[in-house]
């Protein structure tokens, strides 16, 4: 009886591990989506409407922090400047703010 129970637990543990891991990843992604929505709302309010600032949020993982990426077309960098303080206020601890500008833009 005991050995059967141990065998059941051992055989089910990889499946349970994957389920727990996927649940954790889904929660992290949901948190990143909420961060993205919050930043987007703040940027929209700061710029008085929809703008050319693209916002993308990546969930944190074990080996790297989360990232909030802001991108504008070339020549529209002042938009980021106008919304910059709002973004910093709304990005939580554990997330980096990455601003894409210059270079190939």
């Amino acid at each position, binding site marked *: 009886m005991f050995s059967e129970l141990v065998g059941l637990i051992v055989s089910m543990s990889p499946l349970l591990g994957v389920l727990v891991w996927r649940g954790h990843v889904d929660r992290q992604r949901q948190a990143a989506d909420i961060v993205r929505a919050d930043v987007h709302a703040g940027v929209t309010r700061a710029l008085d409407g929809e703008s050319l600032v693209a916002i993308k949020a990546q969930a944190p993982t074990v080996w*790297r922090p989360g*990232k909030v990426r802001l*991108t504008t077309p*070339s020549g529209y*960098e*002042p938009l*980021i*400047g*106008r919304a*910059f*303080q709002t973004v*910093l206020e709304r990005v939580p601890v554990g997330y*980096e*703010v*990455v*601003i*894409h*500008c*210059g*270079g*190939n*833009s």
Partner: protein
Amino acid sequence: MSARLLAVITPGEEATALASMVGLVTIARAAEADVRLAYFPQLPHPRVDRHDRMVADTDAEMARIERTATEVFGSSARVFDGVKAETVVRFGNPTREAGIEAHVYAPQIVVVFAAARGLLARLRSWTLRRRLARQSDSRVLVLAPTERPAERRGPIVQPGLTPPAHLPARRD
């Protein structure tokens, strides 16, 4: 008293820093901050000729690198009006020296440049960002060049809309 912004430039990120100067100045203007461009090269070796005779010792090389970096970064920042910028060059381990500079300058914003490079350089950059984020009370921003969009291989032509070969080309 205006805010302080520290821009950390490590070896291999010089071009990215120059290309991202617009973004850096935009942030500095928005935060009404004074900018300190800090460049952290490794300690240079003495320069020798092909007969191993010393042409320039370490001090001379350090002076040359410092002068060049000050000219290049300072002139690129001076192009933009309304931003007070200064350049600082510190030799040694970039991660350690950047930590010291952040401790001394006590900036409100730290800007780190990210260039798409090898795995080791990314690991080094990650270590630097983690150290700066842990050590100082300032917010760490990453300035990265915009990724180049995938190049189109050719014009998109729908087969049904292509005119037959015997018809002359239409000229609008």
